[in-house]
């Protein structure tokens, strides 16, 4: 394992007091780490810089890996993780943009992040910005109607600056069938990858279709 990932695991342990982080945090860890290590443009000293790429954790639950990566990348002191979900702390069970440096949007209720990411992408397009918007949803979250409203809309708007990562850890009660085919049917470009393969994650995240939004189905066995 990459040495920084080892230290991020230690940070996650700092928050929970043991090595047993929840399934959601584990399933997003590799995608988020590659995103922040090799893909996103950001400046942790200036987290609201116009020149940053935007990331929205639509699936707001299980944010431990997200917090640990933000801390490791300098958005806030790693010691803050000791106060995860406590009265004194600012790192809650769902991320709050008004409290956590580096968090773009407050999420928690499923099905809210992707529509907000579309709004951000539309705004960047209006500003003629070249920056990209990444949003992470869970497969269980894909039961929500608003997710499918948003997928339909983003395809119609040809939001080429938007990339949606679906973490498919097979937590959905309903069968979702072939998610890549479904996104493609809504006018997205879509690919399915191994959600723990850093090379596949990096390759997929760096792709950008000139005309369509991109979907990456990250399979977590």
């Amino acid at each position: 394992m990459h040495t920084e990932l080892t230290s991020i695991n230690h940070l996650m342990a700092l928050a929970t007091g043991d090595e047993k982080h929840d399934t959601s945090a584990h399933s997003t860890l590799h995608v988020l780490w590659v995103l922040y290590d090799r893909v996103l443009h950001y400046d942790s000293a200036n987290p609201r810089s116009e020149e940053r790429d935007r990331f929205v954790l639509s699936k707001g639950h299980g944010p431990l890996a997200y917090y640990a990566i933000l801390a490791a990348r300098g958005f806030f002191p790693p010691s803050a993780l000791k106060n995860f979900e406590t009265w004194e702390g600012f790192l809650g069970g769902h991320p709050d943009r008004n409290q956590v440096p580096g968090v773009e949007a407050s999420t928690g209720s499923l099905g809210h992040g992707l529509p907000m990411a579309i709004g951000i992408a539309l705004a960047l397009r209006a500003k003629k910005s070249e920056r990209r918007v990444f949003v992470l949803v869970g497969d269980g979250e894909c039961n929500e109607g608003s997710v499918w409203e948003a997928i339909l809309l983003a395809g119609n708007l040809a939001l080429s600056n938007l990339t949606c990562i679906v973490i498919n850890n097979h937590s959905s009660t309903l069968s979702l069938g072939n998610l890549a085919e479904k996104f493609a049917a809504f006018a997205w470009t879509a690919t399915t990858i191994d959600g723990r393969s850093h090379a596949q994650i990096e390759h997929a995240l760096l792709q950008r279709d000139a005309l369509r939004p991109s979907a990456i189905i990250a399979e977590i066995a």
Partner: protein
Amino acid sequence: MKISMRDQMVETLEDLFVHEQRLTLLLADISASLFKDLLRKYPQRAYNLGILEQTLIGVAAGMALEGYIPIVHSIVPFLVERPFEQLKDDFSYQRLAGNFISTGASYDYSTEGMTHHGSGDVQILRSLPGMQIVVPGTAREFDTLFRAACTNDSPTYYRMGASVNPVDHSVSFGKLTVVRRGSQATLIAVGPMLAHVLEAAQDMDVTILYCTTVAPFDAETLRANSQSSNIVLVEPYYEGVLVPDIVAALKHTPLRIEAIGVPHQVLSHYGTPAQHDQSIGLTPQAIRSRIERFLQI
């Protein structure tokens, strides 16, 4: 000839879009034809997104996160009730500013049945921290109040209605307007209820306050104009929404309050809005009877 509030909305926005580059307009099919010029002129800032109201509010929040000031418009059930959680989480909890303009107040769409009624909007929006609520009584007042509040730091709801007062009043955002002063009671008329209240109380010795900003409520003006302990509240949506604000404003005073508005009932008739007014007692005559009984005159 006076124009409707809905046409005024289009005029106001067309003017403001020229001067305020941060404004964006987001529609979900409703009124898209009225805004066709604006949609054509500002393709980067004005969108008809289609019939997806939860996503509509979320997209507006995303644009607000990037510094734009969204204006979202639809009819009450699809602007307030269906995407209520998006208004709560994406705007109120995130402390984002935005403007939400409804049409189809209470039973304006009387022929369409209760799926298209909107009597509960103000009551549920009142529960959201930071949500400002504006109920203009005329098209001119809509213009005044919208221009005053549309770029401030809070989310704001504007309730447009087909029923309007015949005369414009001098209104200020966040302020009650003192229409006249008397001694027997203080009558508070919200938005389009003012005309009914003026007619109902034309020969009564009462104070009449005109309320076009429900939230934040102007407690100071009420305190300065409530010499009597009798308060009559007349609202065009579900009755009694402002009672907690009135009680809080006058908490050191023993009060008698009569709250008149749309009753909490399933309205199963169609017909005209005037027939609904008649049925539930929102006419000048019925309001007068309620005031007389309340004051025992």
